[in-house]
């Protein structure tokens, strides 16, 4: 009996607890192993981005419910939740995972397999509308997807007859949109996404047919086969923030070209790469550059405007100055003088006197942007804001103010004032 006991004690208990102590318990009690602070990107009072250290906050009740659904549905078998400092993951998805980000995770959801992409940085990557359409049927928005449908997270909306997220669905989206948010506004300074620029390709038969192939694999579910913005996703699921663009009208919001003009290829390239934050329009900075260039050529075939009315001369965007408190207070003054508050409200909350009456060219209600959310459709850089009010957003009530400015300094003043409205105060 002696040796049986030896086996049981030494091999069975001894080595097991040794390993558990060395690798499980010891690192846990060592204090340097558990830095609680997370590198958080925040906006300062003058509208700049800066990094501070802060702790992750616990989940809200809604997010915790969403997390439970994420566990129940086994999303974590296909999606990992940590980014490694290798294999270009910090370029593809965002900054590498930090210890403190996981403080409130029990059980952890690291995952061991990536059948789908890593989700560490997915919060804020897509708008809620995208998530809704994607969970209802991933293949509507990503035809090549192998992700399951989650139709039981939906109910039918009585008014529109379309699918909307039910309570569970909303909780799941709340959880997903919060993942990685302890890192704050990191995406606003994520160079691979927001600085994407590319040359344009020429319209040839080859680029058009390649562009069409890209379009059918990536864009058709929302923008539709005819480019009229009536894809299958829109016809089945209610889009609350914005309808996919109808390319046949030739009206494009984000341009360096004058109001009313079609955009330059480089404008479209930027929009497609960066995405339209908050709306269903995804960022496509991971697509090969050639795919993006060629799909632009294909999109342009939907409207005759591109051939008939060549784009006007682009505006000059000078280098932004270093913002100061003086610049901000000047910006506040100009903001008031220029009647921005008519629509955007005195504090930039999108609640100005005429905010409830605005419609876009297609007759949809369109609320003026709420600058305090810090989510900018046109892009997060000062240049993006500057461009937007200089050229206006075609097809929307947002006018062009190019002629209202006497000097670009006023333009920068207003730009940084707008950005400063989303400053992370006291956090």
């Amino acid at each position, binding site marked *: *009996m002696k*040796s*049986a006991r030896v*086996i*049981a004690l*030494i*091999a*069975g*208990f001894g*080595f*097991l607890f040794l*390993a*558990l102590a*060395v*690798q*499980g318990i010891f*690192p*846990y009690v*060592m204090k340097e192993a*558990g830095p609680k602070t997370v590198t958080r990107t925040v906006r300062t009072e003058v509208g700049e981005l800066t990094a501070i250290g802060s702790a992750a906050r616990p989940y809200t009740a809604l997010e915790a419910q969403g997390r439970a659904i994420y*566990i*129940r549905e*086994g*999303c*974590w*078998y296909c999606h*990992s939740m*940590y980014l*490694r*400092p*290798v*294999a*270009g993951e910090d370029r*593809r998805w965002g900054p590498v*995972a930090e*210890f403190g*980000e*996981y403080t*409130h995770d*029990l*059980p*952890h*959801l*690291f995952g*061991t*397999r*990536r*059948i789908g992409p890593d989700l560490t940085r997915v919060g804020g990557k897509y708008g809620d509308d995208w998530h809704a359409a994607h969970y209802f049927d*991933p*293949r509507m928005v990503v035809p*090549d*997807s*192998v992700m*399951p*449908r*989650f139709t039981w997270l939906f109910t039918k909306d009585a008014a529109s007859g379309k699918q909307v997220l039910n309570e569970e669905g909303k909780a799941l989206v709340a959880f997903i949109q919060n993942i990685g948010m302890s890192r704050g506004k990191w995406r606003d300074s994520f160079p691979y996404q927001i600085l994407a620029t590319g040359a344009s390709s020429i319209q040839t038969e080859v680029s058009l047919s390649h562009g069409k192939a890209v379009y059918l694999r990536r864009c058709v579910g929302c923008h539709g086969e005819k480019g009229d913005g009536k894809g299958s996703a829109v016809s089945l699921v209610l889009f609350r923030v914005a309808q996919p663009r109808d390319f046949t009208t030739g009206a494009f919001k984000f341009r360096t070209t004058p109001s009313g003009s079609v955009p330059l290829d480089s404008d479209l390239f930027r929009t497609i790469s960066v995405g339209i934050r908050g709306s269903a329009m995804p960022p496509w900075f*991971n*697509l*090969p550059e050639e*795919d993006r260039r060629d799909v632009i050529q294909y999109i342009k075939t939907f409207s005759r405007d591109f051939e008939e009315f060549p784009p006007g001369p682009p505006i000059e965007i000078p280098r932004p100055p270093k913002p100061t408190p003086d610049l901000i207070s000047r910006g506040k003054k100009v903001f008031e003088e220029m009647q921005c508050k008519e629509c955007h409200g005195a504090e930039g909350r999108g609640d100005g006197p005429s905010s409830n009456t605005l419609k876009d060219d297609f007759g949809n209600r369109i609320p003026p942007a709420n600058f305090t959310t810090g989510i900018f459709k046109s892009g997060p850089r000062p240049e993006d804001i500057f461009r937007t009010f200089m050229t206006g957003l075609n097809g929307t009530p947002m006018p062009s103010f190019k002629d209202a400015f006497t000097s670009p300094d006023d333009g920068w003043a207003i730009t940084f004032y707008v950005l400063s409205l989303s400053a992370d105060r006291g956090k």
Partner: protein
Amino acid sequence: MKNHSEGELVDNKIVSTWMIWGFFWAIFAPAIGILLSLKFNYPDLLSTQYSHFGRLRPVHVNGVIFGVFSTIFLGLVYYMVPKLTGVRMYREAWSKYAVWLWNGTLLVALLSVLFGYNKGLEVAELPNPLPLGLIASLAIIGVQVFMSIARRNEEKIYVSLWYIIAALVWTGINLVYGNFVVPYAAPGVNNAALHGLFLHYVVGLWITPAGLSVVYFFLPVAARSPLYSHKLSLVGFWSLAFFYPFVGIHHYLFSPIPAWTQTVAIVASVMLIIPVWTVVVNFFGTLRGNWSKFHDDFTVKLIIFGAVMYFIGSTQGSVEALRSVQKPTHFTDFVIAHSHATVFGGYVIWVLSACYYVWPRVTGAVFHESIAKTSTWMIMLGISGMVFILTLQGLIQGTVLMEGAEFVDSIVSMKPYWLLRTLAGITMDIGIALVGVNLLMGQRKTGIEP
């Protein structure tokens, strides 16, 4: 009721009951695997709230580990222990509680996972308190085994018993730890570390020692030649016992888990080459000068084939623990290739091979040679093809992603391979199902030595 005649040591009835459950799981869990595999190409196939990928995957994995492998192994324990100790199992009346507790619990637990009760930790999904059923069953078996050993007639404790003792102790502790400690202790990164350890204890401290105990027993008896080296088997045992507990963190390399614990895990993973080599050398040595058995005997054939897969899969495992190899391959099908090569190619095949030896002896029924031949070929072709395809897939997808391919593009490039993998999987799964069916349909004949 007597299940065995006077003078016989083995409780035939209980061995065959475990095995019948095992044959059931051996059809059920792989079938779920086929459905999962098909979903890579046809994601909407039979997809409902209760049968989509995220709900079915844990049923497949737990079904294979705790169903197919464990059930057949536990049945074999009831065969091996009396033979090795020279005494009947202690308190034979308890055996039937163990078998029904184990399988009943597992069935209910897997159904609960389908209905969304999932603890969120890989291989510890089964909702609490159900794992208590599994643990209680192991406790019963553990007491039976230990008491039988205490009362044994044989002086020496053969290496199979060493492994059985260790496996039962380790896994009793580990199931408590994984199911009742990890889900409630230490949130965040530390939870991942604790869970990583559990995850690999299941593989290394249950499946591995259990599977090895089976081969160490059945290879010599089926080949009718003595074990090549007892010393080697002890080197193998102690190196396994020492290194295996440390490897778990290699599931989370490059994560925020402290880097030095990752390094310890990598070193231990590489050191596992030692027990693997001793095992493989021992098995092949045992068959030295006796290779005709490899042709005539299904048990020997499958054990040796399993040893080859075990060697390939384990070496792959040691290599894939290296940081440089993980860069491209982690998170891809490369890892899935490794788990199928070892768990299926090695261990499941080993316990099935033992069934060819034990089943006729406990039931007196003989099986069809021709069906056994077909099934063996299907298993060998299926698993080889599958491991090859999955390894290739992992290398391809890992490389294109490192080169910056768009993620969905990398999925598209995998689709043809996934289809081939499904075909290989179907071949192999029909092969396994045939083992059970063939044995169950065997004609009763008298005159087989027990």
